[in-house]
């Protein structure tokens, strides 16, 4: 689905990604964890084709959709219009009905203006908008940021279900505990490099990762 090898991305003289290799296979749910400024969002923007790598190889297959950091809903439009635009590339499949079945929380909000919703509701709309394109792989940037634990748990539940139906996910999270809990495999990004990778259980068990990103004392 996503196969990135030795990606290098620079902003002017600053190197944001310095030889990063990440892969997400079909149906897999993979986490990317790391502190602020580690290069996570740069990697997301590169994978989604918004940034161009200076070096390295990037191959993606299947349909890819992005839930951007900070939701980035279209504030003046209604929830339903936001969802419709999620299928902008696919003129024939702009019917929003299936999203309301997947995310029934959105049904009462459909005529509301997206800009006036709560953070949790907005994240749900952003998820719905990304699912509108019937993606094969979903990239979610900072899903839990600024949301109440109960809201996060709800979103995570939806994500698990979609994953169970075969959707591949690349989950970018500062909340490493949540990420490792949801995903089978994870990468740890630090200063533009992958410093650790492997099955979630293994990473969660490693003292290094645990102290640096899980806030646990060894």
């Amino acid at each position, binding site marked *: 689905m996503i196969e990135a090898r030795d990606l290098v991305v620079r902003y002017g003289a600053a190197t944001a990604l310095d030889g990063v290799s990440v892969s997400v296979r079909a149906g897999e749910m993979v986490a990317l964890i790391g502190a602020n400024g580690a290069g996570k969002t740069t990697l997301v923007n590169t994978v*989604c084709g*918004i940034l161009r790598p200076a070096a390295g190889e990037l191959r993606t297959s299947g349909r890819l959709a*992005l839930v*951007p950091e900070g939701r*980035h*809903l*279209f*504030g*003046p*439009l209604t929830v339903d*219009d936001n969802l*419709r*635009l*999620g299928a*902008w*590339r696919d003129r024939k499949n*702009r019917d929003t009905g299936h999203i309301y079945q997947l995310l029934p929380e959105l049904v009462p909000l459909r005529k509301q203006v997206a800009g006036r919703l709560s953070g949790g509701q907005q994240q749900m709309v952003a998820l719905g*908008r990304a699912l509108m*394109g019937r993606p094969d792989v979903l990239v979610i940037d900072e899903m839990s940021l600024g949301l109440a634990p109960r809201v996060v748990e709800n979103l995570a539940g939806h994500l698990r279900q979609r994953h169970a139906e075969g959707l591949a996910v690349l989950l970018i999270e500062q909340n490493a505990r949540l990420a490792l809990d949801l995903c089978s495999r994870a990468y740890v990004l630090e200063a533009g490099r992958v410093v650790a990778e492997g099955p979630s259980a293994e990473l969660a068990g490693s003292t290094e990762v645990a102290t640096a990103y899980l806030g646990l004392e060894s």
Partner: protein
Amino acid sequence: MGELAQYLVTGVGLGCAYALTGSGLVVIYRVTRVVNFAQGSFAVLGALTVTTLLAAGLPHGVAEGLGVLLAGLVGVLVGVVATGKPGTTPQAGLIVTLGLGVFAYAVEIFFWGDQPRSFPGLPGAVGGIQTHYLLIIGVTAVVLGATALLFARTDLGRALTATAADPYAARAVGIDVVRMGLFAFAVGGALGGLAGVLITPVQQVSFDSDVALVVSGFSAAILGNLTRPGLTLVGGLLLGVVQALVGGYLSTAYQSEVALIFMLVVLIARAGRRDLVEAA
């Protein structure tokens, strides 16, 4: 019909032209953040083209339609130059459109000379009111209504609004932001062209009429801070009516100043309010 009614209808007719010009500015500004200084040139180019097409024997309606179409195409060209180069800021875009407005002078004088021109509109009068004013009002109502529907009811309109609201997210869902900008320029150009085509039978047009038009359009649009189509219509009509009343009861010499003073008052009042908000 009384004098007052006549002035009102004339004013609403003029106001429609301002509202159309202003709506063009709004459509372009909302999507691209560029204040298109060449907005008045669309009107002039459209109107001058119609004079030529009518002289060539094309029937009314067809000639006017082609004039508007040409203005829309010119809009796309303006958009390409003003926003096509990656990294062009909206400020740079404003200066570029200023340059394009001057370039239009060269083109217009080359093809049509520097004397004012006009062409006949809808003949006749109803109750002392030139029928053409009623045509202006009717066409404007239909076109602005259709534009509102485009934005509110079609996915293309939603995509335009989405691009204006959040270009990053628009790109993330696959909307081609540059193409949306060019489409906005096309709509803006056509609206400007329509204003020129409608107003020319009652008000001659020459190559440098663009400044007065863009200033009036901007004055209309500034009421809604260049982003609100409804307030732009209100602003345009208000401006047209006040102008007609000033022209009718005071002196025609003060007519064109109305828009300028209106604009300055709105701008300064708005800035004053913004300062208050910032200080609070």
